[in-house]
């Protein structure tokens, strides 16, 4: 136990406590002096319209990423589960995106959708869609959502596929004999029995969307245009490491921790009840 606890203490609790402490101070731009500020940092953050914009963006972004990544992964897992010939090849290929670094994944999508060079943006232009995520905020948000979904999908796929393969075959056979067609079998037997996995992935995907999409957003849009893709975690980085306002950044990370903590509590409290173990 001790080594793990040590690692958690040094890399999680210590920085977290530092952030909480920092949230109550105002620091000069060079980090040479600081002054106790009470709740002033929080007040400033909570009265800033861009913070609420980032909150809204984050909620839309997270919901879309979590639902998108989970539903596509489930669809792919169900299809991969049915494949007999060459199953390993399909599975390996579907897992690959997870091994791609977020920044690399971001650049990949950036090239595909580049308004002047991109393959897909050119195809979209042919069907009359004027794609320019550098100017259009909604398109920019859609692009980072796609890139993040693509990245997370593999992770979900592995879990869903494992869960599907762990389902006793006889249950599905019994259902087939009990006159349930494939569609009904999926919704009345498979889907409920996958619920522990789905719940676990819901929590993991929410956390992913809130925190770990930073790299993708940074490479694809850098939070733009006009803050349209600035999520809360990206704003923490921008205000702290670009804007050098450590106090506000720390206050925002404290709020973000509280938000994700609250969301996870909510998920365990209300969503877990629907889980069939």
């Amino acid at each position, binding site marked *: 136990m001790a080594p793990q606890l040590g690692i958690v203490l040094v890399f999680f609790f210590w920085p977290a406590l530092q952030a909480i402490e920092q949230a109550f101070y105002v620091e000069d731009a060079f980090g040479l002096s600081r002054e106790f500020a009470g709740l002033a940092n929080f007040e400033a953050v909570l009265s800033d319209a861009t913070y609420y914009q980032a909150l809204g963006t984050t909620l839309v972004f997270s919901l879309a990423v979590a639902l998108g990544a989970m539903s596509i992964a489930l669809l792919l897992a169900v299809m991969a589960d049915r494949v007999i010939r060459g199953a390993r090849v399909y599975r390996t290929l579907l897992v690959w995106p997870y091994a791609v670094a977020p920044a690399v994944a971001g650049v990949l999508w950036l090239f595909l959708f580049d308004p002047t060079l991109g393959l897909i943006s050119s195809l979209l232009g042919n069907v009359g869609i004027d794609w320019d995520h550098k100017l259009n905020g909604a398109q920019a948000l859609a692009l980072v959502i796609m890139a993040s979904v693509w990245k997370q999908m593999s992770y979900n796929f592995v879990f869903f596929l494992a869960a599907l393969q762990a389902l*006793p075959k*006889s*249950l599905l*056979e*019994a*259902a*087939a*004999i*009990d*006159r*349930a*067609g494939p569609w*009904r079998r999926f919704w*009345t*037997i498979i889907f*409920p*029995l996958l619920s522990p996995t789905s719940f676990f992935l819901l929590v993991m995907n929410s956390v992913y969307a809130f925190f770990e999409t930073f790299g993708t957003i940074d490479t694809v849009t850098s939070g733009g245009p006009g803050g349209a893709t600035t999520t809360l975690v990206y704003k923490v980085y921008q205000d702290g490491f670009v804007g050098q306002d450590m106090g506000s950044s720390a206050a925002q990370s404290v709020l973000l921790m509280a938000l994700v903590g609250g969301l996870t509590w909510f998920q365990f409290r209300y969503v877990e009840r629907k889980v*069939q173990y």
Partner: protein
Amino acid sequence: MATLRLNGIHKRYPNGITALHGIDLSVADGELIVVVGPSGCGKSTLLRTVAGLESISDGELMINEQRVNALEPAERDIAMVFQNYALYPHMSVFDNMAYALKNRGTPKDEIRRRVTDTARLLDLAELLDRRPRHLSGGQRQRVAMGRAIVREPQVFLFDEPLSNLDAKLRVQMRLEIRRLQKRLGITSVYVTHDQVEAMTLADRLVVMNGGHVEQCGTPMMLYAQPATRFVASFLGSPAMNFLPVTAHRDGVVLPNGVEVALPDMLSEGRAATLGIRPEHLVEATSMADAAAVLDVTVEMLEPLGADTLAYTRLPGLEEWLVVRLDGAHAAREGQRLSLAFAVAHCHVFDSQGARVPLAEPETQACQ
């Protein structure tokens, strides 16, 4: 009410393995057929092809004289009880039993009535709201039965339904299945590897080995006149004793020179196997017209209460000779016994393992 007929059913897998080599079988309306054999003999595959869970490579499967080869499991109107019960873990007992009826679009009040009736029949009325994980093994087994019964199917299929129960419960459920099957009169195919279950449940017994039907008939017929050495060794516990013999002018000769007087049936000098069941070896003093008398030494005793099994050896032979003695018999290890047996209780198998008929013409009854 339904009949079931299998015409030359073959099952070949894409990897080249053939699991069923042309199975012919017909099951009369209301009949309970038990398919028995060692693991890997193809009995479960046979059941799964009837259920529609495995495709049929060749041959015809008829339910009520309708060819059903191409029908989905759902369209065959069969019910199956699985070895692991396959109860839906996220549904209550009621929902488990109602599932098939719901899928068929049966009206709600009829579902309720049929599930409640079946639950009463199986003594499950108190458990309808429980989830399967809150039931004991025996209760789960009854729910699995109930789920099959409530549908009133044409054919019942049982895939080793009792093998996960303890010995006492198994005997109890065996009687229960027999009682329900007779009462409901539903045509049934029951697969098991347990020969006691097979003997006690079957109207007719099918013994399978290596994807072939070895023999088919009433349990007592298979017991009394096994068509092959395999059937003879598979049915009966302890198993039949087999002794290597050579055909002789007036019967057969054991390796130690003891002659067994049998009707003339094999050409002289051919190798064969003589089979005698443990219960058919009796002490020589109590038998007048014995086919032969064997002098053996008792090497080990297994008292079972009602009976005592004596593991004896015949001088000059490798094989054990197992004898079923009365439980009150005063045999001791090391004791010598003179054992006799009647001609009527001798089974002779040729070198291919096929039965050599001694007197009476015998009948086969698969079709």
